[in-house]
């Protein structure tokens, strides 16, 4: 299939989304309800990951570094 421009390609992708989720058979107002619910769910996921993922990653790194770092320090202390 040849897509003349990006718009057409995005329209085809939206069509695939409608077909795969089964929304294609619903009436327009039902489509809007589903799309808004899905969009708000995705937006919440994105927001939560933006706010909390760096903090969690930093804490995890500190935890693991603490274990291995602690090991190194204790072996150094034993040797000296």
């Amino acid at each position: 299939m040849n897509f003349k421009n990006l718009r057409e390609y995005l329209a085809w992708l939206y069509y695939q989304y409608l077909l795969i989720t089964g929304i294609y058979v619903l009436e327009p107002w039902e489509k809007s309800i589903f799309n808004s619910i899905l969009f708000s769910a995705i937006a919440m996921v994105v927001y939560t990951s933006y706010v909390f993922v760096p903090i969690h990653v930093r804490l995890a790194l500190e935890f693991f570094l603490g274990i291995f770092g602690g090991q190194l320090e204790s072996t150094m202390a034993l040797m000296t």
Partner: protein
Amino acid sequence: MATTAADGNLKPYLRKNGVKCEHIGKNGYHNHKEKNGQGTGVASRRHKHEPFEQAPMYVAVLTYLGFGIVTLFGYLRDFLRAVGLEKCNIAQEREKQKDFVPLYQDFENFYTRNLYMRVRDNWNRPICSLPGPVFDLMERVSDDYNWTFRFTGKTIHDVINMGSYNYLGFAENNADFLKTVADKVRQYGVGVCSTRQEIGNLSIHEELEQLVANFLGVESAMTYGMGFATNSMNIPALVGKGCLILSDELNHTSLILGARLSGATIRVFKHNNMQSLEKMLKEAVCSGQPRTHRPWKKILIVVEGIYSMEGSVVRLPEVIALKKKYKAYLYLDEAHSIGAVGQTGRGVTELFNVNTADVDVMMGTFTKSFGASGGYIAGKKELVDYLRTHSHSAVYATAMSPPATEQIIRAMKCIMGKDGSTEGMRRIRQLAENAKYFRSRLKEMGFIIYGNDDSPVVPVLLYMPAKVVAFAREMLARKIGVVVVGFPATPITEARARFCVSAAHTRDMLNQVLDCMNEVGDLLCLKFSRRKYSPQPDLCDETDFELDS
């Protein structure tokens, strides 16, 4: 498989029925003997290649997802209808009866209300011309999402017909071909106004039955006005309480209805699976009836020639071998295969080179390949004479009307070559060619197709409910009429589009359909097949490993 110890257990029962012990070979099948017989070998090996390819896992997941989401919205709409926020267009109980046991609440109705109604513009499309290779459709639109329709008045002309069971192209209105039919209408009229038993037995009916018996190569045949009624009314006449019916998983509703009406015990074996059938036969012969353990009065194996939803062909030589070994009877429903398969159109018995005397009851319909309506039952003279007096369809149903009878006679004579032309043979060859070409091209493109390579019924799997609907609409927009089938006619995850190839389709029409399929397949992402297609047939097409267990 059967060791000598097991043979020892089986011997007493089988000796009573007169089976010679040397026939109980190591694997229990007569196949080894039959393969060296009159040409069953080549035909059976070729026709066993029937893969039922499974789609990738994500397809099943997405199908369930689609159904789940639409079901949720169905609950929402039902709630709105119950609360009163939305007008209810469907059948409902009356106000006074709201406290009674509900009439309209089971899943099938939920499905009809909330899924089928949304998309039902793809079914029951009114046709306003002959259902030949091309036809005309009346254009209809809906203003309230398919609850009601109205006709715009325009006709869509020359839509290619890929849905009619017009296998040999006898649905035609050419005046030359229909001359004999017109003459018979002048002679006999159109209505018979009686049943066969009373005063409706016309000489043309006798002629037709003689012709059908000749065509099939059996002693005698009886014809009925309706194909569905042939099955549902004759099985109860043949078996009753105390008999066992072994029916294939995917048998048609008419066979299931007939089996249920008869009152016999019904056991279902897996589709075309000979191990399953043999296990059930063994168990039936050994244990007998459920509580009393008396031997069954009759065991009837019910199979179809071509299964209309899968396009698969029954494994006839194996079924016959099993039936002979276990002394059961065979009922073969050739609704889709008579006239459509076989070298000269005689059906699956010819396809597998099997003696017609081995099949006890041969049933078929005239709706598909002969372009008329009605059904027949053929077999030994005693059987058919018995059915003439004891079958409900013969005694109570109105006889077949003369123009339909004459249409069948002329179609059959054409196929047999008795009308002096080679038109019949040309059509059969054209159908075989069309079917092979269509199937191989679709497989090449990457669609998942079920069924045997020779069958003119081609189901293309679509799986997801929204894609099924979009497919039907897109094909109609390209002026091709297809039949799509979903739940409940097929399992809920295996929705499909069923193409029926006809001898009346020209190569150009098929090419047009194939090009549109290619386009629509890319547009809707329907090419799920992961098979690497090779254009040569399998050289080492070794027979089933299932048999050598």
